[in-house]
């Protein structure tokens, strides 16, 4: 059985009097895109830096690809830091070949992979430009190539889409999917919730250093679901049994169901109601944005810190 790509257990880290990370635990499997979420200063980057052995935890256990982060694992890990930067006075091609070689690729393979990935992210024409001459988006894609070209088994990407236009976002997204499809574990730290909703299977939400939500994204959304449905219909909708309240926007109604009322029962009622024609019926799913605000917002208001909701 293949070991987990990453195991983090009860991680703690303080800077002076500030507890940056408090008891963070999570695992990431191969072939998974995992979302690491949290507001600014929540402890995400500190956690990532501890995973990558850039800083030492005060306590806790980290296993990267089945072992503590070390010489053997360095070449199997890719990292796109939040703070972007490459050797600015060098040509893009030279920088990427060098970084590929540092990750254990031979010179020939590094050149081959650099060419392949530069073409993939549409930067081949810019290969002879100095890094300082690249636009922000180009620089970000170049850095993504540096994190991906050695085809690592674990990739940690911090805010991969910030500053990218929709076209480049799509390019990077497809690159992330291709990494996942070849079995790599991808940890994505981001504020862009819609990207997480679209791409991640599981998430960990950290707030002020503490893990507050962890698990399967669908299950979490289910848990936060408001038991409401959205219906587009024509005809007059009178009082509907089992509905607590309703909101109307043109011909679209959002109906909040009473406890014990199921969407299926409501649909049956509406279909059989005289003078009503249902065009669209769907369950309202709570967005990750709402979950984030609900969870972190509550805690920010001073509610007690409970156990991780998993």
């Amino acid at each position, binding site marked *: 059985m293949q070991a987990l790509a990453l195991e983090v257990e009860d991680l703690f880290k303080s800077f002076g009097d500030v507890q940056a990370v408090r008891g963070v635990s999570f695992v990431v499997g191969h072939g998974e895109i995992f979302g690491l979420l949290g507001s600014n200063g929540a402890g995400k980057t500190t956690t990532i830096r501890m995973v990558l*052995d850039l800083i030492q935890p005060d306590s806790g256990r980290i296993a990267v690809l089945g072992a503590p982060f070390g010489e053997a694992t360095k070449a199997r890990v890719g990292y796109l*830091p939040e703070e972007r930067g490459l050797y600015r006075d060098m040509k893009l091609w030279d920088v990427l070949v060098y970084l590929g070689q540092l*990750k254990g690729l031979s010179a020939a393979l590094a050149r081959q992979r650099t060419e392949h990935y530069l073409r993939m992210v549409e930067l081949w024409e810019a290969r002879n430009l100095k890094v300082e001459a690249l636009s922000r988006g180009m620089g970000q894609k170049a850095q993504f190539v540096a994190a991906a070209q050695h085809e690592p088994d674990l990739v940690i990407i911090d805010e991969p889409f910030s500053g990218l236009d929709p076209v480049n976002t799509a390019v990077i997204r497809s690159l992330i999917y291709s990494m996942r499809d070849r079995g790599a574990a991808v940890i994505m730290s981001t504020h862009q919730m819609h990207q997480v909703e679209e791409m991640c299977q599981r998430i960990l939400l950290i707030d002020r250093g503490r893990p507050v939500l962890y698990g399967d994204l669908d299950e979490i959304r289910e848990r936060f679901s408001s038991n409401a449905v959205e219906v587009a219909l024509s005809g007059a909708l009178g009082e509907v049994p089992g509905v607590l309240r309703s909101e109307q926007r043109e011909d679209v109604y959002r109906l909040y169901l009473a406890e014990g009322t199921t969407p299926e029962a409501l649909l049956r009622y509406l279909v059989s109601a005289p003078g009503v024609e249902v065009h669209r019926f769907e369950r309202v799913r709570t967005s990750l944005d709402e979950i984030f605000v609900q969870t972190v917002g509550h805690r920010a208001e001073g509610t007690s810190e409970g156990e991780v909701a998993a």
Partner: protein
Amino acid sequence: MNGRTIRLVALQTIRQQVQSRLFWIMTLVLPAIIVVVSVIAALTETRVPQGPLGVVDRSGQLTIPISDQEDGLPLVAQPDEAEGQRALASGELQGLLVVPEDYLASGHLQYHAVRQPASGLEWALNRFLRRALAPDAPPWLADRLSSDPAWSYEDLASGRVLSSGLEAVLWGLLPMALGMMFMLMLSTTLSSVGPAIVAEREDRSLEMVLTSLRPSELLAGKLLGLTALTLLQLAVWLLVGLGALALGWWRGGQGGLPALRWSALLWAALLGGPGYLLYAALAACLAILAGGREQARQLSGLLVFLVMAPMFLTGFVFMAPDGALAKALTLVPFTAPSMALLRMMMTEVPLWQLLVALALLWVSAALCIWLAARLFRALSLLYGQRLSPRALWRAFLGRTSSGAGRMG
């Protein structure tokens, strides 16, 4: 430490430096100066005035030929100095040589010219004056009188016999030239060490790079690359210097090759290697403390003072090459390479002093490299944090968790 990784970093450092204009300026300016000086010297060496030169002999001891064309000197006897000055002012003469009454006793001469006398003129006039004292001498005697004697010197320490002139000068000056070259090399290359050390931090690529290698490997690779480049620079300088020397040797009509003081070259290499590493590691420490490229470049200026210290003390050392100050500075690692070489020009430096200096140099270079590696590690641990001296010191001591930190 991983040798392959260190080699990659060294090559990357070399590539970065070679792509910078500053490196080529530093590498080529000194040779360019040598070439220009050599060319100017070659062009002006044998240039003697094309027009006539006046001679006023107040001593009455010289038999002055109206014209001495042997050395290309068109000499014209002048009745008195006033007439000579008039002819000089009117442009009839290019120069006026006045031989005073007491010339035979004092050897004093006066030369008047509107422009600086050409090099080689003095040598030609000396030949003329010697021959003019004995105009009736047979040709063999006249030749001997007008030619400088050819000396041979034996260096008892090495048993080497040296011919006079350039070879003897080279033999004596080589150690000092090497010492000066060491100081010059450090002065010009130290300014590139600091910026290279902090490049990743300034370019914000340190975090990414450190997931591929250890901080000590990054530092070792950079120092190795910079050392290789310095050796390349030195090789260029030496090649051009030796070329200029060979040109001078050849123009002097010498055969074969001049004798080289190999012991000086050997000690220059033995002391220069750890000497460079010591200063490079110190420059690295200062750069890490400075945090940025520009600050690192400025701080390296402080080290140049230390590098040049033996130069300021040369006078004292020349007066007492075996004195306490000279001995002490030979043993102090910061001044050992240049001071030992400077002293070699004037005295036989005892072997024990050279060996102790060498040992102390290696120990201090190793200590500085260790210190730089610790500081570099601390710098990487403080990644993303404010680089205050206190935070750096605590990181240096391994107390990384108690510094002020930025979280994310």
